[in-house]
């Protein structure tokens, strides 16, 4: 993966968000993730490089893409006929597409460019207690880029937050990111190592170790660290997993937790990238399900 310091692949800047930390925030989605969770709701953020997506319902069938493609990878004249084997990801088709049906997902962005976007909303941060949230994918993949962005934010007095899956090198995190971070949202998916390997494609030993290092019990510098548990039906929302997490987090001294209801709308995005939606789910959780999940965390202050 390309993780040099000056450029990162940014999927999107989402501004004015109220869902990713305190106040109004600019959320930077970085592309690339060391995990491969079956239910990943941002499937377009898994690979670190730019990708080509096709959203069929937006296609006006004008043929501009086929005319622009130097490889002949659109033999049928529209995005529906995209031959990913022939595609070299030059994105000329996406440039030509008038409707955005063919779309480049992710583009290289320098720290300076990212700061320009962030600077726009500084007055809103100030008045709402908001700031910048780095998420993805996994932002710690771009350690140096994220590090210098966080430093620049700190210089401007902008509140900073990183959302992480926890699979990072702890020393580098402590040295390069932690000094400029105000808050960390830490994903807690599956406690069981075997289950984690099966569903997320990687071992969770390092993740659990990192969580411990950041926990109140570790005696580390006090910092706002919020464990967040995605409630994936039949996978992470089982009583066994939740009971385990409740005990584990309490043992580490955490008093707060966020439970994230599952959002099934990601499958459309996976299809647009030419991937199969590997994980089919029943849909949105019911109120009863949520209540059952929440009951395990009665001893915590829940953050919505």
């Amino acid at each position, binding site marked *: 993966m390309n993780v040099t310091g000056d450029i990162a692949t940014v999927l999107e800047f*989402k*501004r*004015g968000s*109220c*869902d990713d930390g305190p*106040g*109004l925030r600019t959320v930077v989605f970085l592309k690339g993730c060391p995990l491969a969770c079956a239910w990943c709701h941002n499937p377009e953020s898994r690979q670190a490089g730019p990708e080509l997506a096709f959203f069929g319902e*937006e296609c*006006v069938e*004008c043929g*501009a893409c086929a005319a622009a493609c130097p490889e002949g990878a659109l033999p049928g004249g529209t995005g529906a006929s995209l031959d990913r084997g022939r595609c070299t990801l030059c994105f000329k088709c996406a440039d030509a597409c*008038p*409707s*955005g049906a063919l779309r480049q997902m992710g583009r290289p962005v320098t720290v300076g460019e990212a700061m320009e976007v962030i600077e*726009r*909303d500084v*007055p*809103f941060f*100030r*008045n*709402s*207690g*908001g700031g910048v949230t780095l998420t993805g994918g996994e932002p710690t993949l771009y350690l140096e880029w994220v590090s210098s962005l966080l430093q620049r934010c700190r210089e401007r007095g902008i509140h900073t937050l990183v959302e992480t899956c926890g699979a990072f090198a702890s020393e580098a995190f402590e040295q390069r990111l932690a000094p400029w971070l105000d808050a960390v949202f830490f994903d807690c998916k599956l406690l069981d190592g075997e289950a984690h390997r099966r569903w997320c494609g990687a071992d969770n030993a390092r993740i659990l170790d990192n969580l411990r290092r950041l926990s109140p019990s570790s005696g580390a510098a006090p910092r706002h660290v919020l464990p967040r548990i995605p409630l994936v039906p039949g996978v992470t929302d089982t009583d066994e997993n939740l009971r385990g997490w409740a005990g584990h987090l309490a043992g580490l001294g955490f008093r707060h937790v966020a439970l994230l209801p599952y959002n099934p709308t990601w499958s459309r995005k996976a299809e647009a990238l030419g991937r199969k939606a590997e994980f089919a789910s029943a849909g949105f959780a019911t109120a009863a399900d949520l209540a059952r999940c929440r009951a395990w965390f009665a001893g915590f202050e829940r953050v*919505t």
Partner: protein
Amino acid sequence: MHRPSGTSLLVRALLGAMSLSIRLSPRVRAHFLGVDGWMDFRVGIRTVDDSVRASIHFHDGRANVSPGVPDDADTVLCFRDAACLRRMLSATPEEVMNMLLRSELSTRGNLATLNKFNFFLSLLLKGRHDALRRRRAKARRAVDDRVRQAEKLRPAAVLQPRTAHDARSASERLSAAPCDAVRFLDDPCLSAWSLADFPRLAAFREIHFTRRPVLCAERARLVTEWCRGNGFETDGEGRPWVPELRQAQILRHVLEHKAARIRPNDLLPGTTTAEEIGVVLYPDTHGTTIWGELLSVAERELNPYDISDETRRLLHFDVFPYWEKRNVREDVRRNHGEPLGQRLDERFAVYFIWKTVAISHTIADFPRLLRLGTRGMADEIRAARDAADQADGDRRDLFEAMGIVLEGLETYAARLAGTASREAEVATDPVRRGELLRIAEICERVPREPARTLQEALTAIWLAWVALHMENTNAGLSLGRLDQWLHPYFEADLEAAGPEGRREAIARAIELTGCFFLRCTDHLPLVPDIGNFLFGGSSSDQAVTLGGVTPDGRDGVNDMTFVLLKVTEMLGLRDPNVNARYHQGINSETYLRRLCEVNLVTTATPSIHNDAAVMQALTEFSYPPEHLRDWAATGCVEPTLCGRHFGHTGNIMLNLVAALEMALNDGRHPLMDWKVGPSTGDPAGGAFPRFEDFEAAFQAQLGFLVDRMCEYNDMLGRAHARIRPTPLLSALIDGTLEKGRDVTRGGARYNTTGVACIGLTDVVDSLTAIRQLVYRDKRVTFAALAEALRTDFASEPALHALICTRVPKFGSGDEEALATANRMARFTHDLLASHRNHRDAPYTAGFWSMSNHVAFGCLSGALPSGRRKGKPFTPGLTPSAMASKHLLDPIRDVARLDPRSMTNNIAFNVKVVPRPGGGHAEAVDELLALAKTYIELGGMQMQFNVVGSDTLREAMAYPDRHRDLLVRISGYNAYFVTLNRDLQLELVERAEYRA
């Protein structure tokens, strides 16, 4: 002469049937015999190409049909083609008016006479019209059912939304420590109180939401009765009337004879009409617009009114015939030969001039009334009269007229005192008896003497308010800075009550001001069905303004500000239209947070103004600071310097997009199919080598429209001075005593004329698209673009997609689009400011739209901005929903528009939905962050709609459950369920942001 067409024969047959039924039916014939004798008028019917021509002449209880259209026809209906004409034959009278809007039909000649003709059509075809209406209602119900099923909409809560929110967040309501100039309230949010503590207010509120309005003829009857007895043009001895004196006597007559009613259990006496909720009729302006609907107005789909047979008869036989030619609109037609400006106005697609209805958008000097009483005012007027030159008859006449109307006002109060005493005598409940005796005492004192208590002050203002509405149309007359003006009296009550009585005095103030707000709902403006389309769901728009700074520049947020905010929150009314001034650096954040909380709870009100920016907007007028600081919103949002300024701020709704369409078509307006503007060149023919050349063509077309509009407006203004000068309003506006002129003749100290310029965003986005695609990138030729517009982009879907996704919009953060917006706003401002009205004052430029962004949008074709044919423009100057996914972009860009180009204010709508599961305080803080930042960045005005599209869709499917769902349109509030479908959909489709 060629053979008459089939349609021609059909029309003549219909007119022949009309003629026959007059002959055969005594009942029908009787309707032609008015108080003034047999109705005598000619109506012509034709098509544009003259393939159909016919006319009918009604006289002496007979009717003759002839094949031609005579030159002296009183009114002529001109159809676009024979098909439109045939459609009219099977349409209800409301639908005929809608054909007028869609340019399938245009008219020449007297509109009142046209409405009279419509009345006779509905008289003959009532059975058929009723059947048509039933069939349509059934079809509509079937569609609604399908929608409900398709969207699986179920009625959610049994509680109504506002009440539901009320209940949900009641326990979470914010409280605050005293702030600003608050002296008495321990918790300015008054969070301990709720509507449940005020059963009287809850009961009145229920009446407001459930009682059907009734068309009330009381004022029209009294006015007509006086004029029949004393003459209109000349008096009993044949001398021409001095208009001011005539109007003064008319008003005194009305106030001496209108019913002196006190609503059962009310604390404020007096009512605008003789009905619980009455629609007021002003036959001297637009009253006759309802003539054609007299038989059907109770059955129309949107906002029906009840009407009694007695009212119907009175209006048809007596009132309307008297005023058919004696109204402002027809006076201009007669005196100026139906000028081009009038003909344009009557096509509805390019501008709408409110002077045909009212001149009311202003604010009277209520503090003067409270301070001096009518007696003190009369002394001043008398002194001015004595000082006036004996030879200056005009001055002396005006002052005499003012004296007469003040007498009338005193008489009305005295009669109400009588009513209160009589009712007290028979009251069984001792508490109510006490209240009535108190009312009687108060009415014996005010408005004649200065007010001393809050109840006296509110009574004096309310009685003057009733009287002002007996003089001037209830359309935008505004209440001004009630918190500033009432505060001394509230303070006096609190001082008198002492610390032990404080709680009770505060409750009393909430109840009294609540009664006042609900009194203001006792009347509605007359809206013909065509108005449901043009001005959907609007009431009178009686603006109240809170907060800001005092005339000497101190913090003006006081105890009364917070009492009125509490009332606003508890009642959730569309009208009074509450506007709040926030002066950064002087007013507290606690106050701004409270404004956001009330907006959240009511979903739509108050609107928030950046005090400093509004004052900056008015820099060019060099108003003295102490007068400038006394500004208040009028009608929707427009600034008036209270009590000194006659700005008729809501005078004109101007469609900027019409000029763009004319520039795209060499001066021809496509929907009207009328080459009315100057030839500026055909874009498809290469007339514009550079982008700037096209922009110049747009400016030339707009210049042409503004010239016509101002000419016509001034004619109407002079007609007002002849037909309906306003001695009472003039007595309550500073400057008239020195100048000795009525406000309709420029008597006020400050004069302007307000314009609302509609479609700025659509024009800017269109110009940006043309510049980028045609000139800069050369992606498309002007000819191809023009063709795409003609086909509503059907021929060029890829071009449409390109415009939507690749051309930066105003409000996206794009600097060039923002610069274009600023340039266009400036151009429009300068164009208007270069015209002077008949009161020798400039026109001001506002960028709000009332509801006309929907109406004008319906009447406009596809635009280069990507907006499709017939779709609404954006409300006010709100960026398009396509501009940005991020709410902060539009907020930042609108804030960067130069206020100095926006002298008649703006309306910036932001639709936000609190995040599900979020708390009340959190939601308030999110609104606060947005409002505060917008103001810091220099934004002028903003209004939140805190309601999601889901709720709006549900309200469309289940209107009965959402009667009180309040929404902000553009500047004014309306109940969502009273809006026409186009407006409802516009609100649903507005960009929605999570907050």
